[in-house]
């Protein structure tokens, strides 16, 4: 029982390190899309690991932790996809080192898609 708790605590620690890496990435990355990338990935894995560790330490709530992990795995990528889609649509400034942008080329070929293009805020 005690070893299980220590293993769980270490997993939680690993998760919190990933959360910290996500925050550092949020500060260091140059533009919106790379920030969304780093933020989503690191925070998703970090939360999943933390919750898993807590679930190991406290088996009474393991079922709800499982549901929470499934829920986060469905919702978190969806929300970051929505955010990235909106950001590209309103033309948020991309980093100077962006190599290729096939999506803008695709948009320009379909005039009805940017009939009323909103401005970036």
């Amino acid at each position, binding site marked *: 029982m*005690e070893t299980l*708790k*220590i293993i*769980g*605590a*270490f997993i*939680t*620690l690993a*998760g*919190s*390190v990933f*959360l*910290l890496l*996500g*925050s*550092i990435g*949020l*500060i260091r990355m140059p533009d*919106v899309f790379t*920030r*969304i990338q780093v*933020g*989503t990935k690191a*925070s*998703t894995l*970090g*939360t999943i690991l*933390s*919750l898993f560790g*807590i679930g190991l*330490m*406290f088996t*009474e*709530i393991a079922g*709800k*932790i499982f*549901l*929470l992990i499934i*829920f*986060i795995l469905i*919702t*978190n990528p*969806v*929300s*970051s996809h*929505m*955010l990235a*889609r*909106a*950001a590209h*649509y*309103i033309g*948020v*400034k991309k980093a100077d080192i962006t190599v290729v942008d096939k999506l803008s080329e695709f948009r320009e070929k379909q005039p009805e898609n940017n009939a*009323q293009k*909103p401005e*970036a*805020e």
Partner: protein
Amino acid sequence: MANTILQIAGGIMLLSLVLSLYRFFRAGSLVDRVISFDIMTIISISMIAMITYTSGRAIYIDVALIYGLLSFLGVVIVARYLEKSL
């Protein structure tokens, strides 16, 4: 032993909460702030799970479920607002 490690983990979570707040203040656009909001809520979910363990009350985890649901909807709402199609 386990509690000490957990306290270190909690400290790191608090640090990352503060760091993601930095991006909220020094942001170029609304999208940056929303990303920082998203990460803050995600960290809060981990913190709620940790508080559940340290206080020893299993019922607190219900709050984390509701929290995750509502923060997801908040981000989606702002994304739809930015697209002007709310």
